[in-house]
């Protein structure tokens, strides 16, 4: 064997100046513009960047699974010493079955819905040459390996009968069937609950140590990358702009784009009262755009003429770090958004919404599912209440009850401005309907696609504010201005707008009738971080201007923290903790809150002593006795918690908690001084 072969053999994946283009109407549009990086055996490499930057294309190009209109136009891909671009179809198949594996977003889609889990896992082994009988044994072992205790039961089920976390374990089990040398994870935890995400990430870390596989992780969530990866590459418009050890890149970014990306994030307890979020000016280039020599030049504050004409060279700043920027030395001069004077005094007004004993019971066959149990809450004018909890905790049910989409159980009281509200929207007065609005995660489904933005907003004004004609025209102009849409957007249809602009239209629609309360249901989850920052700023501005109250639901605790004045933590339909946002986040917290907070991977690195929740959310049909959280609670007191449900008591001014452990003991347990 020649020496060159042995050296390349030590690299699990090597991309060299990879160019990929997609044919759009017959014209090749470049998507990757010279991507190079290496992943060594046992190493985890993260690719980060906003959607459309080419992360996933890089991964699919690497395993040669590009869509039909995509092709590699230049460069090379080497996996385990083999030139991927020269492999014959059978060799490619052999390589896929034995050396490379892939796990991607949304496990419910990546498993065949009509075939039992068992048959699908078995297949991953028969393709390696095992007999059916051997493969069955192996399949069971594979599930044990991904910590599924009752493997046989899972194998006998169909994918839809499993929870999302369980499905993702199955997919990972199949991926590990061949002891891959390269494991590609494409957004493996996007869409999963924070607690499940934490479990899957822990599993990946453990398995990586066990198998020694190289990992390529693609994620838009920088915290996920930081938790898993040794090194990270930041991509923008089909190029890697910065590369280095994950901790160093995130703590001390050297490319203006990385700096911008990190500053967009609501992190380190950022709150709307203290500061606006940074945004990156401009927007991502569209596919097919001809870009300047430095792809980020158009949006870069530091850009000079040189950036337009001369491609920035790779600069090795310190060991293992590479930056592609002419002005990396000036990055420290980039100014962050200034702190703003805290809004005090008039920030919070009288009680707008009062909930008392709000319960909601669903009938499921012969069972009763108590989705909400005796929730008491107040919401004041201009205040934001963040709702936090895993899926199934009752967040959405509570929001729907307030909106009047669900009729609540008898005995529930919902008051708006001290007036009792009817259960269902249809039974409410026009004023009450107008007073409570909602902003959805996906503005696409909320906006009528066949209407122009103008028509959508005019209708909202007519329906909600009851104005039309000239008055509506004037209000429309001021509303458009408030949500920072330009007049030219008014004659466009939603289809022609970007996600961020669509969300602005949706926000304008919600504010058309001067609402008292706006429910924001995952308002930025479908958006890239730079767009998210702009929308969060806008929501904060609108609230200040209109004195509206918000109810914010988001799985992203950074977003909740940024917008909220108070936080309500729900578990199985019960309020576990309720208090001022700063206190709830700082602790001492309810053990459930503690577990949630500690599950979320942080871009700033995780504390060493994370709380790990085990087990799945109990079924609401068959509730645990005593404190409903005791089955998963790491701090449960034996003999007490499973016997008696703790009441919701005030532990400090305005801070309520439902826990048997005294607050001072929690303080000690959670090391809070």
């Amino acid at each position, binding site marked *: 064997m020649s020496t060159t072969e042995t050296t390349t053999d030590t690299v699990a994946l090597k991309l060299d100046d990879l160019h990929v283009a997609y044919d759009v109407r017959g014209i090749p549009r470049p998507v990757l513009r010279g991507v190079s990086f290496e992943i060594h055996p046992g190493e985890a490499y993260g690719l980060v960047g906003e959607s459309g930057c080419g992360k996933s294309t890089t991964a699919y190009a690497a395993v040669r699974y590009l869509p039909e209109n995509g092709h590699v136009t230049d460069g090379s891909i080497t996996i385990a010493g083999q030139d991927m671009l020269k492999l014959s179809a059978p060799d490619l198949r052999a390589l896929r*079955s034995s050396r490379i594996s892939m796990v991607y977003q949304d496990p419910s889609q990546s*498993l065949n819905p009509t075939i039992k889990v068992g048959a699908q896992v078995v297949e991953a082994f028969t393709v390696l040459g095992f007999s059916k009988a051997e493969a069955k044994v192996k399949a069971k072992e594979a599930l044990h390996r991904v910590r599924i205790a009752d493997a046989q039961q899972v194998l006998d089920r169909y994918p839809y009968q499993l929870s999302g976390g369980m499905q993702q374990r199955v997919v990972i089990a199949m991926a590990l069937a061949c002891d891959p040398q390269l494991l590609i994870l494409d957004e493996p935890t996007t869409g999963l609950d924070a607690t499940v995400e934490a479990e899957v990430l822990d599993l990946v870390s453990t398995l990586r140590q066990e198998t020694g596989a190289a990992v390529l992780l693609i994620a838009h969530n920088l915290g996920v990358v930081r938790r898993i990866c040794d090194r990270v590459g930041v991509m923008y418009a089909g190029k890697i702009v910065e590369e280095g050890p994950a901790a160093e890149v995130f703590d001390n970014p050297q490319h203006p784009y990385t700096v911008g990306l990190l500053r967009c994030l609501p992190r380190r307890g950022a709150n709307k009262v203290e500061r606006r979020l940074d945004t990156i000016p401009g927007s991502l280039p569209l596919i097919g755009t001809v870009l300047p020599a430095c792809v980020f030049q158009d949006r870069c504050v530091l850009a000079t003429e040189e950036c337009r004409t001369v491609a920035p060279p790779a600069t090795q700043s310190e060991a293992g770090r590479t930056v592609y920027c002419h002005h990396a030395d000036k990055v420290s001069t980039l100014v962050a958004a200034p702190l703003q004077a805290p809004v005090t005094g008039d920030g919070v007004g009288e009680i707008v919404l009062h909930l008392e004993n709000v319960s909601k019971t669903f009938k499921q066959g012969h069972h009763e599912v108590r989705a909400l149990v005796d929730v008491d809450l107040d919401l004041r004018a201009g205040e934001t209440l963040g709702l936090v909890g895993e899926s199934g905790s009752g967040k959405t049910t509570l929001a729907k009850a307030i909106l009047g989409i669900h009729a609540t159980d008898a005995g529930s009281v919902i008051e708006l401005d001290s007036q009792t509200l009817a259960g269902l929207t249809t039974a409410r007065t026009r004023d009450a309907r107008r007073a409570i609005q909602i902003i959805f995660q996906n503005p696409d489904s909320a906006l009528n696609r066949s209407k122009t933005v103008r028509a959508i907003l005019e209708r909202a004004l007519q329906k909600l504010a009851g104005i039309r004609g000239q008055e509506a025209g004037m209000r429309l102009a001021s509303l458009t201005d408030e949500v920072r849409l330009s007049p030219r957007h008014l004659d466009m249809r939603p289809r022609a707008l970007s996600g961020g602009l669509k969300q602005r239209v949706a926000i304008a629609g919600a504010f058309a009738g001067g609402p008292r309360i706006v429910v924001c249901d995952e308002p930025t989850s479908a958006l890239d971080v730079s767009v998210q920052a702009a929308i969060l700023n806008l929501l904060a501005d609108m609230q200040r201007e209109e004195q509206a109250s918000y109810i914010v639901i988001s799985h992203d605790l950074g977003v909740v923290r940024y917008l909220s004045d108070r936080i309500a933590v729900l578990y199985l339909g019960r309020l576990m903790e309720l208090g001022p946002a700063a206190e709830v986040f700082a602790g001492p917290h309810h053990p459930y809150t503690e577990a949630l907070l500690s599950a979320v991977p942080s871009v700033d690195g995780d504390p060493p002593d994370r709380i790990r929740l085990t087990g799945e959310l109990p079924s609401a049909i068959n509730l645990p006795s005593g404190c409903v959280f005791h089955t998963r609670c790491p701090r449960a007191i034996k003999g007490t918690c499973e016997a008696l449900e703790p009441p919701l008591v005030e532990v400090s001014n305005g801070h309520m908690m439902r826990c048997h452990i005294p607050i001072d003991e929690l303080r000690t347990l959670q090391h809070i001084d």
Partner: protein
Amino acid sequence: MLIFLIRRIGLAIVTLFLLTIIVFALSNVLPGNVGRQIMGPFAPQKSVDELNQRLGTDQPLYTQYIKRMEGYAHLDLGKSYKSREPVTHVIGSTFLNSTKLAFLALLITVPLGILGGVIAALRRGSLIDRSIVVFSLAGSSLPEFVTASFLVVIFGLQLAWFPVIASTGDVISPAEQLYRLVLPILALVLVYFGYIARMARAGVITAMEAEYTRTAFLKGLPRGVVIRRHVLRNALLPTIAVVATQTGYLFGGLLAVELIFNYNGLGRELVRAALNKDLPVLSAGVLLIGVVYMVATLLGDILISILNPRVRLGDQ
């Protein structure tokens, strides 16, 4: 599975019951006085009354309905108003003829349509895909009587390869009968191939782009295995539903084809009954088509439930 079956069959029975009521209501509400309709405007009232009495059409509607249902329960479909023959006779032979035609057409079209659709989808964008798409679009957008007329002119009259009359009036050998049915079957194949092929093609394309298919490919499974095991099963679900719903029509709605080829099928018989106000024949015929439709969709649903566990096991 058993619960699903019982529920599904129960539903079919309820639907059938509703159908009998609707058919009965329509056939009684619309024409007014049956005796008068049959005997014409110049017949003396006395004879009309007598006729109504004999036919039972002077009774209150619910009595008539119950009587009709009692008859149906004993497989007695009543007697034709026109020919006085039992309805079973009148409809029986035509239904058999329709069954032959529909069955043969389905036997050819379903596999051919699915095959065409699958090939087109797997060779998406190729010449063969485009030919299949254009051919199926043309076939299903032309009305049957146009297609049938073309076939008659080209293969029947110009080339004279096949007979243009498919009638089974005289006693003929099965081979001869098949020979006579070639053109009508061809007309139906041309129309239904398009429906099925397009549906199958769309299903396969969707399934090929699905993420579970990507999983299967990236497991390293050979293309053939991926398609057989992962793609087809999911891809053909909508096609099965389409075939099932079209089957009812194939049995009773082929008036044009039956007229053009002078074939004594159910469609033609029902139109004749409608024109003659021959209500027992019409009701029984419509009901029969309803039964066929119900059985076809039931079989389709059972097949779908076998292929798709979610339908079979419910959402838990």
